[in-house]
Each structure stands twice: as C-alpha cells, then as structure tokens.
C-alpha cells in the first residue's frame, strides 16, 4: 500500500498509583454508606496519565510511520480519544509529534465500565471519518481493563483483531509483520490491512516527546471536538442498555500478618516456622 491510514485510539485516566490505601477504602465504603451507586475513588485531585498500553500504541504508530517513510511510503496518522477535556493536552502533544488529525469525541457520559457503549461510540466515529487501514488501540485500559473493547470495535467494523501485540514492522505489499503474545508464548505473523491491532506489553512502551519548537509549530492548529450526539449516538441512553453493570466495589486485603515465630534457638525457630507456616505451602509448589 502506497498510502496507509493509521488511526490510534487512546484513553486518559487519573493516575491511580497516586491514590493511597485510605482513598481506596473510602471508594469501597462510600457506596455502602450512600446506599446508591457502586462508588468510585475520588480522582479529581490526581493528575491525568495516558493508559500504558495506549501510550505504547501511539509510539508504535509513530515508529511504523518512520519505517514506512524510510521505505518511501506515505502514511497518515490520526489519533482520537473518547473523553472529556482532560484529553486535550495529550491531543496537543500528539499534534506536535506529527499526528495530522487529533480528535476528541465527548460522550457526555461516564463510560468507564461500559465496554459495549465505548465500542459503539468508537465504531461510529471511525465510520464517520472513514474506517482506517490500521486501527491501533491499547489492549486494555483502566479502570475496567476488560480487554474487550478492541474486539467489540473490530466486530462492529467487520475487521480481524490481534491483541497483546508487542511489536509491528512493515512487510512487503503493504502488509504488517506483527508479534503478539498468545497461548503462553509469542507468535509472529503477517497481516494485511484493514485490521485492528491491540497493543499489550510492547517492546517499545513509552511515547517520544516533542520539542518546544515542535509544539510552537502546531500552536495554531485546533482539535476536532465533537459530541457523541453529533455522531448520532446517545451515549447516556445507550448506557442504560449496557448489558454489564458495576454494582459495588470491595477493597483487597493486602496487609501481611507479621506473625512472630517463637523459639529459643535458631533450630527451634526454623522448626516452628516450617511446621506452622511453610510445610503446607512448600508441598503445594
């Protein structure tokens, strides 16, 4: 293919690692107290980050473009996020990195645990802009991490989908050589566009950084922003029909007991440790 249209979808989430144990406990307890809704951690006060697999997908797209350019092939790059305004700084960065189109589809609804609605919005958007040759997505993203969205989108668009992709190289006749994790090992295979590639633990997982001059060059460029309503999808109404619903949240007990093993000598203590704690565990190994 002389010209390849690559579109990357990404998500921006709160930096969950910045929350502490009490924040998680409050999230789980809050729902029980209020008696309604599943509860959610308070994330207003933490910064926003790219989904780790989405970040890898974005960088893989750039590397694919670079490799094709070296081979004298043209590529157009577009990126989108189904998100509120918090995605805008990331979209501006992508513009500076050479994504010709940077779009945000505002669902005006919380789609965190709604893979079916999310996939429907994405598929509708892609049909609107023209289904891409290659759609790159992160294989999964917080807070739900279902891993289902790429397949649901692929199914709506009638495309094959490879997930847990770790690397993509260009191959002859416009095809791609894709490495992915499957069945407990790794497989490398050739795939012809159009296709969906869902990126997992990629060899390259971090997005390059544009220079201040790159940023300056695209300063005047605007983002495409459209609501899901403008696409003809009422995300809020669709949510009511989402077949899976988050009912409640529970904390995970990670506290280790720190039981002191008694004894007079090292031998006695080793014996007590073995009898009370280790024997059964070692037998199971």
């Amino acid at each position, binding site marked *: 293919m002389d010209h390849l249209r690559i579109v990357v979808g990404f998500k921006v989430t*709160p930096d969950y*690692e*910045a929350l*502490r144990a009490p924040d998680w406990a409050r999230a789980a307890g809050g729902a029980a107290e209020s008696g309604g809704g599943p509860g959610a951690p*308070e994330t*207003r*006060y*933490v*910064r*926003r980050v790219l989904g780790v697999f989405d970040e890898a997908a974005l960088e893989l797209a750039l590397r694919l473009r670079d490799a094709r350019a070296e081979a004298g092939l043209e590529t157009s790059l577009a990126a989108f996020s189904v998100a509120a305004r*918090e995605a805008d*700084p990331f979209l501006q960065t992508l513009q500076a990195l050479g994504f010709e189109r940077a779009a945000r589809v505002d669902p005006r609804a919380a789609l965190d645990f709604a893979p079916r609605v999310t996939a429907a919005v994405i598929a509708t958007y892609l049909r609107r802009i023209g289904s891409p040759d290659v759609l790159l997505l992160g294989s999964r993203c917080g807070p739900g991490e279902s891993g289902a969205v790429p397949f649901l989108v692929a199914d709506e668009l009638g495309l094959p989908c490879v997930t847990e992709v770790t690397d993509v190289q260009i191959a002859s006749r416009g095809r791609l050589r894709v490495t992915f994790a499957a069945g407990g090992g790794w497989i490398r295979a050739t795939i012809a566009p159009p296709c969906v590639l869902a990126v997992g633990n990629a060899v*390259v*997982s*971090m*997005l*390059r*950084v*544009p*220079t*201040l001059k790159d940023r300056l060059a695209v300063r005047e460029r605007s983002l495409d922003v459209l609501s899901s309503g403008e696409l003809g999808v009422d995300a809020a109404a669709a949510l009511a029909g989402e077949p899976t619903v988050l009912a409640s949240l529970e904390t995970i007990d990670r506290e280790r007991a720190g039981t002191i093993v008694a004894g007079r000598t090292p031998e006695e203590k080793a014996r007590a440790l073995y009898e009370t704690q280790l024997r059964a565990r070692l037998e199971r190994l």
Partner: protein
Amino acid sequence: MSLSREAIVEGLRRIVGPDAVVTDEKILVESSVDNFRKLQNIFDVHTAPVPAAVVLPADTAQVAAILTWANENGVNVIPRTGATATEGGLESVVPDSVIVDGSMMNQIVSIDPYNMQATCQCGVPLQALEDRVREHGLTTGHSPQSKPVAHMGGLVATRSIGQFSTLYGGIEDMVVGLEAVFPGGEVARIKNVPRRAAGPDIRHVVIGNEGALCFISEVTVKLFPYFPENNTFLGWTLKDMATGFAVLRDVMVNGYKPSVARVYDPGDAGLHFSHFAAADDCVLLFMAEGAAGIAKATADGIQAIVDKHPECTQVPSEYIETWFNDLCWDASKITAEDERIRQTHNVNRTTEISADWSSINDIYQAAKARIIDEIPDITMMGGHSSHSYINGTNMYFNYFFNVVGVGPEEETDKYYLPIIGIICEETLKRGGSIVHHHGMGKARAPWVKDEYGSSYYILETLKRSFDPNGIMNKGTIIPL
C-alpha cells in the same frame, strides 16, 4: 611514585580484610559515575577512569587507617554513602581512585527524645532514621526527595535541603555535632551543644565539604515534634512568576514559617498540575505545619497575604495535599524514569541556584530565554522556587531535552553542561549563588572562583591545610 592497582587493592585488604574490598569490574564501572552522568549507567557506555576498588570500612578506626594509608601513598579517595549524588561529586576523574563507601557503618547510635537529638553513623538511610524517631512522635524535619535512598553522611557532606526547609532549615541548621576523619587519620569530634561562641563555627568546615576535606563518619541532628494531623495545604494559580516571587517575599518578610512555600512556572506546573492548572498558569502552594495553633496561624496569615493579590485564584487544598503525598522518589518511579530515558532518549535534568528577591525573577527569565534560544532539542524548560528566606529564595530549574545525534555518553557535553553554564553565568552576573542545595560536585566546580570571589582564599586555604597531598575527591568543588 604512584601505586599500581594491584598494590592499592592489596593495601586496602590489609586494612579492612579481603571481604570489604570490592573489585568486581561491573560494580567498579558503575561506581565511576553518579547521577550527573547517569546516562552512562542507563545505557552502559562508560568513559570515566575505572576506580581501583570500593572499600567498605566497618568503623571510624578503619576509615582513619584507610585515609592515613591513602595520604601516605597519594591515592585519590572518593567518600560516599547512599551514592545518590547528582553533580558528579562521586565521579572518578583520575585513574585508580578508591571509593570509601560508608554504607556498612549503618547503626543508629542514640535517640534522645529529651534533648531532642539523634546520633547515627554515616551509612544510616535518612528514611530509617526518620522511621525510628517517628516511633517517639518525632521527626528529623529533613525530607529531600531522595529520602528513601540517601544516607546521613552524604546528606551532611553535600549541604542537602529538604522539602520542609522553610520551617526546619537546611541540614546545616539541623546538625548539632559530628565526627569526621581527615587525611592524616585525625578523628575530629565536634560536641553536641545548643550553641557556642568559642570561635568560628567549625561545623561548617565539615558540612558541605563534599568529601574534598574529610570523611564524615557520624552525625548528630536535631529532632522536632511531629504533628502531621495539623498539616494544612493551600494552593493558587496565577499568571506570572514575578507575582509568585512577590507573594513568597511577603510571606517570609511578615515572619510566617510555612514548612513548604513554592511557586512553579507554567512549564514545571504542567508536569505536576495540568489536571487543574491551564497551560500558561503558574502554581503557588504552601503547607503549614506544627502545633495546632501555629499551623492555623500560619495558614491564616498566608491566606490573608495572598488574598491581597487578586490575580491569584485559589484552588481546592486537596489538589496540593494529594500531589504532596506522592512527591518522594520511590523505587518504582526511579525504575520507570530510567526506562523512559532508555526508550525515548528524553532526559530530565535540574540545576538549582539562589539569589536575593531583587534578582531572582531576572535570573529566572534570562536563563530560561537563553536556554530555549541557544540549546537544541529542548522539550521543556521551566522551574520552581521551593526554599525561601528573609532575603531571597532559590530557583530550581527543571528541564528536559531529547538527546539527538550523539551517544548517551556525550549528553553532558552537548546539552547538560552548556545549560548549567548559562544558568551559572546569569546567576553570577546578578550576584546569586550557583548552587543552592545539590553541592558543587565536579559539574559546577569550573565556576568556583567566580562563585567565591575574594573569599576563595578561605576555601583554598582550607583545602591546602586539611588535604595537603590532594587525595580527597580530586576535582570536586575545586576543579583539577
């Protein structure tokens, strides 16, 4: 005549025993640099002379024996503890140096809650000391970002400062006494007293000597009551740094002692606060702490001062508190940072200076403009002021660049040192100090005479007197 590497290793083994002399090639190569040339370790491309050995003394007597031997044989000695230095202070710049690593001297000698002081050996991690004194409801008050990894000896040797310095001071305000070993093997103990006027304060010969005069083997620091429940956070957005500096000055001049008082420029704020600050916003923030009445009075006083600046827009304190709780380096952050550099070749560096209130904004503006203009491949140029005083404040320049067209080992020459050069020039021109709290190391040593001016005479005399054979950390503070 200088000793061969074999003779150096042999000499050290005789002093401390074979187990305490490390000659593993990989460890020696890694030990040839510190974070100043961290890309050499991240990419495993090394250019500095490989040290002859790392030696691990068990006590002060062994340190004294090592320094005596090194002094007699002209062997260059690089003292270190936690090895978290950022300015090349631990770099070996002459062949066959010996790294004297105090990390095995890691005993907390005493915690004295009545006299509010704690004594520990040089290799005690600050975090370990802090955890122990917290059991008594106390704190060291010292909290540099490197707290989880840095050790007490190194913190004192580099005149480090912590995030709460505006209340508790820098390490020089905390050290009440110490023990240091000099090149001839002399062990000097400075006793622990509240104050004295028996001549010059000789603590300051040792604090900040960066291993260029002596080896710090033990320190005694002050302790403070710990009232985390009273911590109060305040934050504002604003459009220019000049206003931010002016507010910081008002707070300091009016006598308030917040533990944290900072103003971030838009670039630096973007790294931390983009979830509530616009791309062109500066962020001003404070933390008040201490006994309930003090914390409240401090917070109220600051609120009243900032209220007089209508151009500052207050933000919910939770933003500041949540950010603050996630500020220190932890293990996973360091790993992720190294991996990011490996993959993207995008490098984050910092340089900190200080100046009086009249000059600080000019230095910030001039250095920033020149760096953006003169240095290629800059991806972010910004900074913040984080330590304020009655007469001025610091500026912590924080910047990122892509390493393009050169190997990782050339990153310092192509980017880092030229940037440091611009910052030092603009600072010196306006009478500021080129180093606020990282130490001179070898990175900023070339500017030492300009930094000291006529007082260089005192520094030079100290060096000549205490280290006549020039065996202590060659190239640090005073260039080769």
